[in-house]
């Protein structure tokens, strides 16, 4: 006995007794050793009751030793780092670990929810659906979810750092047990790139707790030697603490590598908690082992009832006795090894109960030699004990029953090959009657299974299969392996497994799915109510839907359902296993793509200047752009008004760099643009600019902008900022997929050019003061024209176009010179005594609303076609264009569609709210005839200005309408869009 750990053996196991580790479980400070898991440390300390069950709040203790553990889920850590529902078996012990059981309050020992157990006849399968129906399930849902549930997710952001890796390899081997090690060793020797992923802390798999001899060494020593050989190969690596969670298409594999525990991460911010891997493997060898099945009997969930293999695992690897007086119950030979190991470690084995007539080999003699009572042909019917098992009722082959005192029941219902990943890969399973388990049958991807996951439970067979699989996989990846196969000592021939489930008449719950509290009775109820399909059974009872995804329960449930419905297990079928194999933190999926890095903002070339000018930034289509440049004491609205007035009265300076710019070149460029735009571009003169609409095949307007003709075969197409990427992509799609005969190249150059726009009556003066070789005279360089020239010493493409209604120059310069251009223009203007007011998006939008210019996506939506915008004339165009056929439909031309109009209000009236509906009374109810799409208060006109989409709007110009707002009804008059400079004198100055 070892100090305060009453169930720890004095010797044995791979723990380090010289390194005690202190941890806290449910408020109690306990001690374990380096090399322990939380589970083994709890057992060593004699903690039997370590949680409560999901639905009935029944006392529960450890049942397994690995990923199959379905009872002891803990809330690990505190505060922001707190992680819910972690299996205690999967937590390597570390100093300062704090954990508590989930699903019990105030404590596991005294749990108020335990009343559910007394009321359990009301909590059978489908109970919620049948009972909480009136008036609606949602009334009850919140309460039920609190009462029946597991751990709590921290509501704070996860402070841990997660990493992502991508890797390619010739062979990925999953699992470093005997089969996986043999496979990886053989392939690594061939020079292939091999990754061997092992979820455990150490290589060896079952060799860590089972007795075996390989190449004349104890199994665990051979595993170390094989691992060293693999690591020595230049292209091979072993990843420990790495769980393969998903097997996806085309051999794409996802893995989670656990790097540092929370204590390390808390102390060292640069340390990553875990790393998410995506591996593209040419070949995969699955050597995922097998998981033991529980036996199904009443009270099989009491603390102290454990899987026999797990009991052996705790004994051999951690030097921990799971109890002091054990009963071993089994339907197969494997559990006999547990009985022998327990006895040899000094645990009293009160009985071995085998549902079969006789075990294989010398096992019966092994028991007799140790004077262990043997009940061949017997079974356990039930257990008793308030908070842990105290006795089991054993019925022998002779029909005689008796209670036998014990504090441990080691049960084994046989093993299930771990076929989860094989099933995820779309491989088909078959039911092997001799093994009483599903095994891989037909592969779909470049993958093979070896060892216990392929039904080869014995070490010799597993090693042989693994070696062969490694060589074959390497060969298919183009490598030749020549390495001698390891040789394992031959084990006793095993006798066949017996049935895993038998009907007994004992009262009390016999659990199939411990984690979701599903009993034999629930499955029977499901069958009675005709939920006999395995997929229905799963949803109706929630069997297999807990965090463990039915690792221990699925096959037992199938067997029971098969028996109840008179079908074979093969006919009953199985549900397809899903990603992820074990629960994984969201952080692993997000990696570094969180916070500011989730979707980085795009910053304009003059960003620093805008910051210095006091801009308030907002996001527009991924770009951070100034909404307004507030001065001390100004409201956002006041800033917008001041900026807009500056444009109308003097000049404003605006950065339009995100505008889309696409060069379209080639002998067929003009033909292509005639197809791409709703209107005609081929008639455009060189040096001129034309506004156009772009449609999709449904006739819906997707973008607008100006195109400039730079040469006979060369156009520069402008798009909205938001459309920059999509329009270039759409052009490529049409050219590459539909009009392959057109000789045109499309180059998106949006971010190669920055844009500074001067707008206002003094814009021309500023251009001249900055110095330019372009003749700015309105007769030479009029509105809607384009010229190449120099501005302030910088080579520029200058558009004379306007989105404000005032004289504007859109100056395009190489991105790196944009900030210099802004500064030089500002200095030049200030030299003239002008304010050179920087303009934000808010004022810019107000100015275009005054002018009545459309803003795609604000005024239009996914139902707005070209005709709705007053562009019916495009149908006169002789040649075809995208969307033309749709516009020819009657429905697209109906006069009562929503159409783009202005909504004018009386002088002095404030702005209409955007989104407010234009309403009429119909049969005593207010119905909508359209709505306001753009609106603002015009300081120039001294009233609100608005644009909208109105049913049949164009034919209703001059009609007085009413607009419903939160403050009541407002009057407006339908008109053409735009109120500023109707004659266009400012534009054409």
């Amino acid at each position: 006995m070892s100090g305060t750990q009453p169930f720890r053996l004095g010797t044995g196991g791979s723990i380090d007794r010289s390194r005690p580790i202190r941890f806290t479980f449910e408020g109690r400070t306990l001690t374990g050793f380096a090399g322990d898991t939380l589970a083994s440390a709890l057992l060593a300390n004699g903690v039997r009751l370590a949680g409560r069950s999901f639905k009935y709040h029944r006392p529960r203790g450890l049942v397994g030793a690995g990923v199959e553990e379905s009872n002891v889920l803990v809330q690990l850590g505190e505060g922001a780092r707190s992680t819910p529902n972690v299996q205690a078996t999967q937590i390597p012990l570390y100093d300062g670990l704090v954990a508590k059981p989930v699903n019990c309050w105030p404590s596991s020992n005294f749990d108020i929810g335990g009343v559910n157990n007394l009321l359990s006849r009301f909590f059978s399968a489908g109970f919620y659906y049948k009972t909480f129906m009136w008036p609606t399930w949602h009334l009850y849902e919140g309460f039920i979810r609190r009462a029946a549930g597991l751990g709590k997710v921290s509501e704070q952001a996860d402070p841990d750092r997660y990493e992502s890796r991508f890797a390619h390899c010739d062979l990925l081997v999953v699992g470093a047990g005997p089969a996986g090690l043999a496979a990886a060793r053989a392939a690594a020797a061939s020079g292939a790139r091999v990754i061997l992923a092992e979820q455990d802390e150490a290589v060896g798999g079952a060799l860590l707790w089972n007795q075996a001899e390989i190449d004349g060494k104890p199994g665990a020593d051979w595993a170390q030697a094989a691992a060293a050989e693999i690591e020595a190969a230049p292209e091979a690596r072993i990843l420990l603490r790495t769980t393969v969670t998903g097997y996806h298409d085309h051999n794409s594999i996802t893995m989670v590598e656990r790097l540092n525990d929370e204590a390390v991460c808390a102390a060292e911010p640069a340390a990553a908690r875990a790393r998410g891997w995506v591996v593209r493997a040419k070949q995969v060898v699955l050597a995922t082992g097998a998981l033991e099945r529980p036996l199904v009997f009443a009270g099989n969930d009491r603390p102290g009832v454990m899987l026999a293999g797990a009991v052996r695992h705790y004994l051999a690897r951690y030097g921990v006795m799971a109890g002091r007086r054990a009963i071993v119950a089994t339907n197969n030979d494997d559990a006999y090894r547990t009985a022998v190991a327990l006895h040899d470690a000094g645990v009293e084995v009160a009985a071995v109960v085998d549902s079969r007539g006789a075990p294989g080999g010398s096992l019966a003699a092994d028991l007799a030699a140790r004077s262990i009572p043997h009940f061949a042909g017997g079974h356990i019917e039930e257990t008793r004990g308030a908070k842990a098992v105290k006795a089991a009722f054993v019925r022998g082959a002779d029909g005689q029953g008796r209670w036998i005192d014990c504090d441990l029941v080691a049960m084994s219902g046989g093993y299930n090959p771990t076929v989860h990943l094989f099933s995820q890969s779309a491989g088909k399973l078959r039911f092997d009657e001799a093994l009483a388990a599903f095994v891989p049958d037909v592969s779909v991807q470049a993958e093979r299974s070896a060892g216990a996951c392929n039904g080869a439970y014995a070490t010799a067979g597993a090693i042989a299969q693994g070696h062969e699989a490694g060589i074959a996989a390497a060969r298919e990846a183009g490598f030749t392996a020549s390495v001698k196969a390891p040789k394992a000592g031959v084990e006793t021939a095993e006798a066949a497994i017996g049935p895993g489930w038998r009907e007994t008449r004992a009262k009390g719950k016999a659990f199939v799915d411990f984690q979701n509290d599903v009993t034999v009775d629930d499955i029977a109820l499901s069958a009675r109510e005709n939920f006999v399909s395995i997929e229905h059974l799963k949803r109706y009872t929630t069997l297999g839907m807990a965090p463990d995804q039915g690792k221990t329960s699925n096959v037992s449930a199938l067997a029971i359902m098969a028996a109840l419905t008179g079908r074979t297990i093969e006919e009953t079928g199985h549900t397809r296993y899903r990603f992820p194999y074990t629960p994984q933190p969201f952080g692993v999926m997000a990696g570094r793509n969180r916070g500011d890095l989730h979707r980085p903002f795009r910053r304009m070339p003059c960003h620093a200047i805008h910051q210095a000018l006091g801009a308030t930034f907002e996001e527009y289509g991924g770009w951070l752009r100034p909404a307004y440049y507030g001065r001390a004491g100004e409201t956002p609205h006041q800033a917008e008004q001041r900026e807009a007035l500056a444009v109308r009265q003097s000049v404003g300076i605006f950065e339009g760099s995100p505008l889309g710019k696409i060069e379209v070149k080639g002998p067929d460029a003009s033909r292509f643009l005639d197809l791409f735009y709703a209107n005609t571009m081929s008639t455009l003169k060189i040096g001129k600019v034309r506004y156009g609409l772009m449609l999709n095949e449904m006739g819906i307007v997707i973008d607008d902008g100006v195109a400039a003709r730079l040469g006979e075969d060369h156009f520069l197409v402008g798009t909205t900022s938001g459309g920059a990427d999509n329009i270039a992509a759409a052009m490529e799609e049409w050219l590459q997929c539909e009009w392959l005969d057109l000789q045109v190249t499309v180059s998106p150059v949006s971010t190669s050019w920055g844009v500074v726009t001067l707008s206002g009556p003094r814009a021309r003066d500023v251009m001249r003061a900055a110095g330019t070789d372009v003749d700015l005279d309105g007769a030479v360089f009029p509105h809607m024209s384009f010229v190449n020239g120099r501005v302030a010493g910088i080579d520029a493409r200058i558009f004379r176009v306007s989105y404000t209604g005032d004289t504007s120059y859109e100056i395009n310069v190489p991105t790196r010179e944009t900030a210099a251009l802004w500064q030089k223009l500002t200095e030049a203007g200030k030299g003239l005594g002008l304010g050179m007011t920087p303009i934000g998006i808010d004022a810019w939008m107000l100015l275009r609303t005054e002018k009545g210019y459309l803003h795609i996506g604000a005024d239009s939506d996914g139902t707005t076609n070209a005709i709705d915008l007053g562009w019916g004339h495009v149908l006169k165009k002789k040649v075809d264009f995208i969307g033309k056929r749709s516009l020819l439909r009657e429905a697209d031309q109906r006069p009562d569609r929503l159409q783009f109009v202005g909504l004018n209000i009386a002088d002095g009236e404030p702005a209409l709210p955007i989104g407010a509906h234009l309403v009429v009374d119909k049969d005593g109810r207010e119905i909508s005839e359209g709505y306001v799409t753009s609106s603002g208060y015009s300081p120039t006109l001294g009233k609100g200005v608005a644009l909208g989409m109105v049913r049949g709007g164009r034919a209703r110009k001059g009609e007085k309408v009413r607009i419903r707002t939160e403050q009541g009804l407002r009057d407006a008059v339908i008109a053409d869009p735009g109120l500023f400079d109707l004659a266009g004198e400012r534009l054409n100055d």
Partner: protein
Amino acid sequence: MMLIDCPWCGPREQLEFRCGGESHIQRPGPAEEISDETWGNYLFFRDNPKGVHFERWHHLGGCGLWFNVARDTVTHRIYAVYPMDAPKPAIGKD
């Protein structure tokens, strides 16, 4: 996640690509001469096979090429990658 063999760049991860849906769809015209039904079929009606599907893909995060792919919708096996203007390849059952 599939591995798609871009004819220009070679095998690349699916996340670099965008699927453009069924391929080999003839755009009908001239616009004035075709029925609403013909146009509607072109716009909206697509095959939805359980098995081989001929579709077009775009190497959006790479070279920008559009090309055709014959993919099994059940197994995601890719039988062929071929140019936009090539006819559908014959895919045998195997």
